[in-house]
């Protein structure tokens, strides 16, 4: 009997979680424990030597967290995954497994602000140098490569510019240099785009956003495709005996999930940015409806984008799948099921009108997050980018009149109603 290839929706509900062997519990049990008993001194030694697969300490692995890891690995079509406390922690663990002091990375310039700071400020303190290039120009990525470049990094959908990156082209650039392409696919979620199908080697997510989907829980995850040839000479840390794990050669021993094992047993074990079991449970609950929520986020966002495009108080609208958008062609290729729930628009009247709009919404929530089940709104110029001058804001892709919406699952007419009445207030 051939193995069935189960559908995405089935994987959202089942991957990584068969009934509990001990109790038969159908829902995922929350293993709220720091540690796991050893059967004997030899069992303990085997576990520490990685000769027996099993749990030792929840900083390294935990059954509830593992269910989440396997589920996201399955949804991405990857080989293995490692969860982390936040999306920032996930990308940190992924990148510090690949690059060390003296190494270099090439990244898209359009990035979530926290990611930009992590690379430009924190990694610089670790001695890892980053070059930021035009996300729309694969040739710029190639031109920035150096002999010590260890990875290429970009976001499927950039935040907040909503630029769609050409994953196939970036994978070609990275593979031409014998290095992996790392994609942050947070704003797409695996429902809308599976970067491994386009040549990416590692995918990271802030699970806080669409995977969890309800604005309750911080979390992140790193997924590996299992296809990158780590023995190509550029990653001796994967093929040589590990100093961090008493001589184990990770690629030789674990093969196509050697990267995840190294990230878990060395990087995560020593840096400690672990996801809690309760958080993993909450994120799993969210994922069980990912395939139901994402189409609605996309449909409503596109409807709002079209509505705003025809609105007299609106200067411009940015949504990748809106007709005439600069990224429409790339969005149709990489995001055929929808371009997500985030859109930006410019309110007539500049920063003052933008602030007035934000103050006038009734149930749209003014806060700094995206990917919630509820509709969220923020005016970057008066909040996240307030410290910057007008010119600096423009360089960061933030204009005074820009409003960012993260469209939720409320009645579409109500979302449009609240936007319309707030726009009317903004023009007074």
């Amino acid at each position, binding site marked *: *009997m*051939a*193995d*069935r290839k*189960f559908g995405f929706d*089935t*994987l959202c509900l*089942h*991957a*990584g979680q*068969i*009934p*509990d*062997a*001990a109790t*038969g519990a*159908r829902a995922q049990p929350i293993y709220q424990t720091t540690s796991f008993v050893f*059967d004997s001194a030899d069992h303990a030694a*085997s576990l520490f*030597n*990685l*000769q*027996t*697969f*099993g*749990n030792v300490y929840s900083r390294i*692995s935990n*059954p509830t*967290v*593992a*269910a989440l*890891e*396997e589920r996201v*690995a*399955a949804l991405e079509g*990857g*080989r*293995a*995954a*490692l*969860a982390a406390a936040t999306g920032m922690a996930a990308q940190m663990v992924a990148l510090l497994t690949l690059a060390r002091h003296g190494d270099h990375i090439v990244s898209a310039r359009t990035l979530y602000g926290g990611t930009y700071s992590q690379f430009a400020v924190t990694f610089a303190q670790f001695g890892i140098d980053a070059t930021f290039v035009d996300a729309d120009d694969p040739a710029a990525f190639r031109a920035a490569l150096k002999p010590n470049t260890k990875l290429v990094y970009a976001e499927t959908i950039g935040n907040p510019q909503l630029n769609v990156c050409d994953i196939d082209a970036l994978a070609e650039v990275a593979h031409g240099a014998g290095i992996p392409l790392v994609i942050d696919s947070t704003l797409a979620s695996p429902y809308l785009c599976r970067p491994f199908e386009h040549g990416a080697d590692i995918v990271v997510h802030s699970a806080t956003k669409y995977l969890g989907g309800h604005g309750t829980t911080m979390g992140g995850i790193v997924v590996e495709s299992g296809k990158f040839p780590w023995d190509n000479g550029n990653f001796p840390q994967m093929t040589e*005996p590990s100093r961090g794990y*008493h*001589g*184990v*050669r990770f690629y*030789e*021993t*674990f*093969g196509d*999930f050697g990267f*995840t*094992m190294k990230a*878990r047993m060395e990087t995560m074990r020593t840096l400690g940015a672990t996801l809690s079991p309760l958080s993993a449970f909450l994120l799993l609950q969210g994922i069980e409806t990912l395939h139901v929520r994402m189409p609605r986020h996309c449909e409503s966002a596109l409807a709002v984008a079209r509505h705003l495009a025809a609105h007299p108080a609106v200067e411009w609208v940015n949504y990748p799948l809106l007709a005439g958008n600069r990224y429409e062609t790339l969005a149709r290729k990489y995001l055929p099921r929808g371009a997500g729930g985030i859109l930006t628009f410019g309110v007539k009247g500049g920063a003052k009108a933008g602030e007035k709009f934000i103050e006038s919404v009734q149930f749209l929530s003014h806060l700094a997050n995206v990917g919630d089940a509820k509709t969220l709104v923020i005016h970057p110029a008066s909040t996240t980018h307030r410290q910057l001058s007008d010119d600096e804001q423009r360089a960061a892709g933030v204009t005074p009149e820009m409003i960012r919406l993260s469209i939720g699952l409320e009645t579409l007419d109500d979302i449009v109603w609240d936007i319309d009445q707030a726009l009317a207030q903004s023009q007074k």
Partner: protein
Amino acid sequence: MATVDDISGLRGILTRTHVIAVVGLSANWYRPSYFAAKYMQEHGYRIVPVNPNYTDVLGETCYPDVASIPGKVDMVDCFRKSDEMPALAREAVAKGAKVLWMQLGIRNDEAAKIAADAGLDVVQNRCMKIEHARIMGGLNWAGVNTGVISARRPVANR
């Protein structure tokens, strides 16, 4: 009989196999062959080490080649270079083994044909420990995509 690469086929092999000759088994605890053999031994399989450099490994008598093993062997598991596989395939056939298993990183279609033509099941480029853990339980510990989708309560396995 042919190359086996799907979950149900691999499960069948791991269920029917009891005695595994591990060719190229190292006595160094940090080598992959030792990892895999120790794990399989802990899961109830009888391991027969095959390596001319040792007299015993993992508490079992070590033999210089497959032909020297006195009893029957279900599986010949190979931790040797790919170009040595055809000769090992012939040894496995001569020994009456039912499975030729080539470990992770090892692939040799000539050897696979020799074994398959003689009626053996053949596995290439896979680790028996990883596959056992993936299919029989345990590898979900490591966040690996096992491909197992089921509402059946598993038999506790350690």
